């Protein structure tokens, strides 16, 4: 079986998107991928954080449990999974910086999740396609767990040496 490395990058405030990211990562583990979970920390001021209950507590905990995404992570990955909260999309400065910093992704597989509206993902798809990633479309009928499995299995199928049809 081909080894597959799945990188799950997420940002999260109250933990909803973190749960989505964890579920997708677990699906990848079920599909026998090695995984890395990376947290994109938002640059926000204290009053903003205090405006949303649970945000501060989650932020302290997540700062312990996850490290920030690094270049070696996306170079390592066969699969990139992005999980972003409602308002972010590619318009938030942290995500824009992250996406702008991605390179050397030709032939890697990507998908995205959001806890927000489909518009977030719709705006993201051309960005990912522009990075020469092979996009596995978000599937609103599948759970994050199943979709994490599916995208990992898709990457494995792509890595298989081509079979002689005869």
């Amino acid at each position: 079986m081909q080894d597959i490395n799945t990188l799950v990058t997420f940002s999260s405030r109250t933990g909803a998107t973190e749960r989505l990211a964890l579920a997708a990562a677990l699906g990848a583990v079920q599909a026998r991928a090695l995984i890395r979970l990376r947290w994109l920390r938002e640059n926000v001021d204290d009053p903003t954080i205090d405006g949303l209950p649970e945000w501060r507590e989650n932020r302290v905990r997540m700062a312990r449990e996850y490290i920030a995404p690094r270049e070696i992570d996306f170079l390592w990955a066969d699969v990139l999974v992005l999980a972003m909260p409602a308002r972010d999309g590619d318009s938030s400065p942290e995500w824009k910086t992250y996406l702008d910093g991605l390179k050397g992704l030709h032939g890697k597989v990507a998908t995205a999740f959001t806890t927000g509206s489909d518009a977030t993902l719709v705006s993201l798809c051309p960005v990912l396609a522009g990075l020469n990633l092979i996009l596995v479309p978000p599937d609103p009928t599948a759970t994050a767990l199943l979709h994490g499995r599916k995208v990992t299995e898709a990457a494995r199928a792509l890595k298989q040496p081509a079979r002689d049809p005869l």
Partner: protein
Amino acid sequence: MIVIRRNAERGHADLGWIESYYTFTFAGYKDPAHMGFRALRVINEDRIAPGRGFGAHAHRDMEILTYVLEGGLAHRDSMGEVHTFGADTIQAMSAGTGVIHSEFNASEREPGHFLQIWIEPGVTDADPSYQQISFDPLEKRGRFRLLAAPRGSHHAEAAAIHQDAFVSAAVLAPGEELRQKLAPGRHAWIQVARGNVSINGDALGQGDGAAVSDEQDLSFIGGPDGSEFLYFDLA
């Protein structure tokens, strides 16, 4: 036959926030001569700085036991289990189809001292599960306190694992003797957690291990400092 694995021969890594001794190949320590013993794959002795630990990471198809020697461990996983536990407790996680978890020294002030044990499961793709069982320390004094046993073997006091393996802890006072029968065809691993103990006359110190095969009668005698050790009965 008893083959001793000395403390100082183990793999060693000091990353500042964690100092580890590896009885068997693990992470950056690779030794083809020490890949495990029977189904026992990992015994890591970790000392972890206050508040530090392992961030979210995944396991698959492994029985993972954690035994606290000093301090406490804070655990959180993808099954929704959030726990803090200390000594005289066995924590057993069956990774099966997959678990993502984090574990940290639960104290912000005191270092923690832990044994982490991996046992290869007899089946793949088991349902992930979490067990945590605490006991009175008197239950391991001068006798074996069963920590883990095969699923279906009906030992309610022990964690049930997906392997034909029994794991026990025992504490001996200086000079105190404990005898154990090893069934024909079975193998044992002894890991000294504290102090010193002799096994059939061979003296073992803290951090030493011993692989036992083709022996039927084992005699453990507490050394000058007394001892706590783990005993693995393996197929």
